[in-house]
C-alpha cells in the first residue's frame, strides 16, 4: 500500500500540471458533484448558486473572510507538514492528532504557569515547549518502529487514543483545571504567551494571528531541510528505497526516530498555535480533528511543502467559506466534508481528472500511450 500511496502522493519536483492543475480540476469536479448532492437533497438551483457564491465570498471575499481562511489553514498546514515529511521518509504518521494534543497541553501549561517572563521570551518558550512535547510523543512511535519493528500506523493510532484520554485526565487535575469549574477546562494562558493578532489595528475582531507568519517560515524551513540538506536527502532516500539507503550508509534506525521527532514537533506546533493563537485554553476536543484533516492536506499537497501550503489554504478556505454558506443558504456544513472527501478521491485518481478534461492534459495522455 505504501508504494501505491507514494506513487500517487509524493511528487519529487514541482511539475506545474501535476501540482496545480490536477488539484484545481479535482476541486472543480468535487464542487460539481457536491452540487448534485444538493440537488438530490431537494435544494433549488437558486439556493445552490447562493451556497457556492457564499462559499467563495466567505473564504476570499473580504478581509475578514481572508483572515478566517488563514486562521483555519495555519494549524492544518503545520500538522500536514509533519505528515508530509514522514511520508517522504516512508512513514505514515496517523498520530498528528495525538501529537497536537500533547503539544497543545504543554503549551497551555507553560502559558498559564510562568508569569515573570516578557512576551518575547514567554511566547517562543510556549511554542517551543509545545513543539518539543509533540516531538517526544511522536518519537515513541519512531523508537518502537526502529527498535521492535512495530508498524507506525498502529502505534500512532494507539498513541492518539492515549493522548485523548490523557487530556481528559489532565484537564481535571487541580493544577490545570480552571478554578471554580467542575467541567474539564484548563486555566487561560497569560497575555504574554498569546500570539499577537496581526490585523487588530483595522478591526479587533479579525482573528488572524502571528502564528500564520510562523507557519510560512516553517514551510520554507521544511522545504530547505528536505531538498537542500543532507538530512533531507537521507529522509528522501530512506523513503524511496530503504534497502538502497541502508547500503549507502544511512542509519535507518536513527532516521526513523529523527523523522518522527520532527513530524511530532510540527504537529505539536499546530497544537501550541491553536492554544496561543485562537483558543487561549485547552478543553476536551480542542484539537478538533485537525490532525486527521491534515492527513488529507498532506496527500493533496503531494507531500511537497509548497503543495501542502496551498492544499492547507484550500481546506482553510472551505472551512471559512462553509460558515457563510451555512448562514446564507442554510446548507448543512456536512456538505464541506463531502466536498473535501471528493477532492481527495479525484486527487487519488488523477486519471479520472485527465480523462475528464483531455484537452488540458493532451500531451501527457499521448505520452502515456
Amino acid at each position, binding site marked *: 500500500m505504501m508504494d501505491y500511496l507514494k506513487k500517487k502522493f509524493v511528487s519529487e519536483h514541482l511539475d506545474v500540471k501535476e501540482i496545480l492543475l490536477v488539484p484545481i480540476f479535482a476541486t472543480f469536479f468535487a464542487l460539481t458533484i457536491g452540487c448534485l448532492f444538493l440537488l438530490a437533497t431537494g435544494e433549488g438551483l437558486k439556493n445552490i448558486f447562493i451556497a457556492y*457564491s457564499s462559499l467563495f465570498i466567505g473564504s476570499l471575499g473580504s478581509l475578514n473572510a481572508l483572515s478566517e481562511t488563514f486562521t483555519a489553514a495555519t494549524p492544518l498546514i503545520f500538522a500536514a507538514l509533519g505528515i508530509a515529511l514522514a511520508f517522504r521518509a516512508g512513514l505514515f504518521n496517523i498520530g498528528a492528532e495525538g501529537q497536537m494534543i500533547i503539544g497543545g497541553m504543554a503549551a497551555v501549561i507553560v502559558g498559564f504557569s510562568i508569569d515573570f517572563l516578557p512576551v518575547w521570551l514567554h511566547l517562543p518558550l510556549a511554542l517551543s515547549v509545545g513543539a518539543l512535547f509533540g516531538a517526544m510523543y511522536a518519537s515513541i512511535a519512531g523508537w518502537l518502529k526502529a527498535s521492535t519493528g512495530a508498524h507506525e500506523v498502529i502505534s500512532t493510532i494507539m498513541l492518539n487514543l492515549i493522548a485523548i484520554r490523557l487530556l*481528559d485526565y489532565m484537564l481535571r487535575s487541580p493544577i490545570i483545571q480552571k478554578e471554580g469549574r*467542575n*467541567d474539564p477546562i484548563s486555566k487561560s494562558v497569560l497575555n504574554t504567551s498569546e500570539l499577537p493578532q496581526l490585523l487588530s489595528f483595522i478591526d479587533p475582531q479579525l482573528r488572524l494571528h502571528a502564528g500564520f507568519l510562523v507557519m510560512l517560515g516553517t514551510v520554507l524551513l521544511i522545504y530547505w531541510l528536505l531538498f537542500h540538506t543532507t538530512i533531507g536527502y537521507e529522509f528522501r532516500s530512506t523513503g524511496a528505497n530503504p534497502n538502497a539507503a541502508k547500503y549507502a550508509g544511512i542509519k535507518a534506525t536513527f532516521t526513523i526516530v529523527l523523522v518522527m521527532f520532527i513530524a511530532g514537533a510540527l504537529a505539536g506546533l499546530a497544537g501550541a498555535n491553536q492554544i496561543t493563537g485562537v483558543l487561549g485554553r485547552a478543553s476536551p*476536543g480542542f484539537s478538533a480533528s485537525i490532525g486527521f484533516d491534515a492527513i488529507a492536506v498532506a496527500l493533496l499537497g503531494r507531500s511537497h511543502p509548497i503543495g501542502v501550503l496551498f492544499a492547507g489554504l484550500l481546506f482553510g478556505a472551505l472551512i471559512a467559506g462553509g460558515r*457563510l454558506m*451555512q448562514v446564507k443558504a442554510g446548507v448543512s*456544513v456536512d456538505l464541506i466534508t463531502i466536498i473535501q472527501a471528493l477532492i481527495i478521491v479525484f486527487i487519488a485518481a488523477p486519471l479520472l481528472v485527465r480523462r475528464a478534461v483531455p484537452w488540458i492534459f493532451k500531451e501527457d495522455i499521448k505520452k502515456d500511450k
Partner: protein
Amino acid sequence: MKTLTKKTISAAVVASLVGLSSAAHAFTACQVTDIGGVDDKGFNATAWKGVQDAVAKHGIDSKLLESKSETDYMPHLGSFVAEGCDVIVSVGFLMGEATATAAKENSNSKFSIVDFAYNPTIPNVVGQVFATDQAAFLAGYLAAGVSKTGIVGTFGGINIPPVTVFMDGFAAGVSHHNEMKGTSVQVLGWDPSAKEGLFTGNFNSLEDGRAFAQNLYDEGADIVMPVAGPVSQGSAALAAELGTDNLMIIGVDADQYIKDAKNKSVYLTSVLKAMDATVMGVIESVMDGSFEGGLTVGTLANNGVGIAPFHDLSSAVSSELAAEIESIRSGIIDGSISVN
C-alpha cells in the same frame, strides 16, 4: 475558460450584493448550536423549535449555524453579528464564555444563551436557566415507584451543572420516595453529596449510551435516565432489545417519545425543559422592544420544566403513584417540598 471564470465571479459578487440587501429589512433570529448539532433530539433541537415557532407565528426569518468543534463558537457568533441578526441565541453551557466575549465586543447586538447564567449579568444577554431538579425530582420519585428490582440508574455526558442538576433532582426524588414509602431504592451512577458519578465524556456517542446503560442494567438497574443529549438514543436501542420488562428509559430535555420515534415505547417519561417556550419568549421580547439583559428561570410553576406523559408505559404506573406525583408537584410549587 478564462472568461467563464470571470463571469462566474462577477455573478457571485452580484448575488452577494442582492443577498445583503434582501437580508436588511426583515427581522432575523439566529441560533448557534453547540457540538451536539441541531439534530440532537435534545436541547439544541428544542431551542431551534422555539426559533421555528417564532418563524411560524410572526413570519420572521431564521438562520442556523452548527458548531463542529469548540473553535467554531467565536467565529459563528461573529458571523451572525456581521450578518445583522436581530437576536442571536446560543445553546449550551459550553458556549458560555464565547457568548460573553461576543456580547461584550458587540454591545449593540442582542444575545440569549440557553443553560447559562452570568453573574453579574451582561446588559445585552438574557440567560435562560431551568430548575430542572424540580422536574427530575418527579421523575426520580416515579422511577422509585415503578422499579421492580429496587435499583435505578443514571449517567451524564460531562460533569457540568446543567447535566448534574438532572441527576441531583433524580436522586433526591428517589430518596423522597424511600422516606415516604419506607422503600430502599438505590440510585447508581450519581452520588449527589460527592458530586461524582458516571459520565460518558461526550454528547454524541450512541455506542457509549448503549454501553453505559448495559453496565447499569448488569448491576441490576431496570430504569435508567441518561443525561447526555443524543447519547440516550443508544440506551433506548438497548432497552428496545431487552424489552421494557427488563429496562425502561427516562428521557431528558424534550419528550423523547415524540423525538426518538424509533424506540418510543421504552420511554417511561421524559424530564422536560421548555427551551422552545423561553427561546420564543426572548425573540418576542426583542420584537416588541421589551428585551432586557438578565435571567429567565423555568420552573414547575411557570411550566418551564415538567415531566412528559407516560404514553405506552402508562400501565406500569399505578393510578395511586400518578396521584402522588401530582401532589408532589403542587408541594414543590408551594414550597412545602424541598428538592435539595
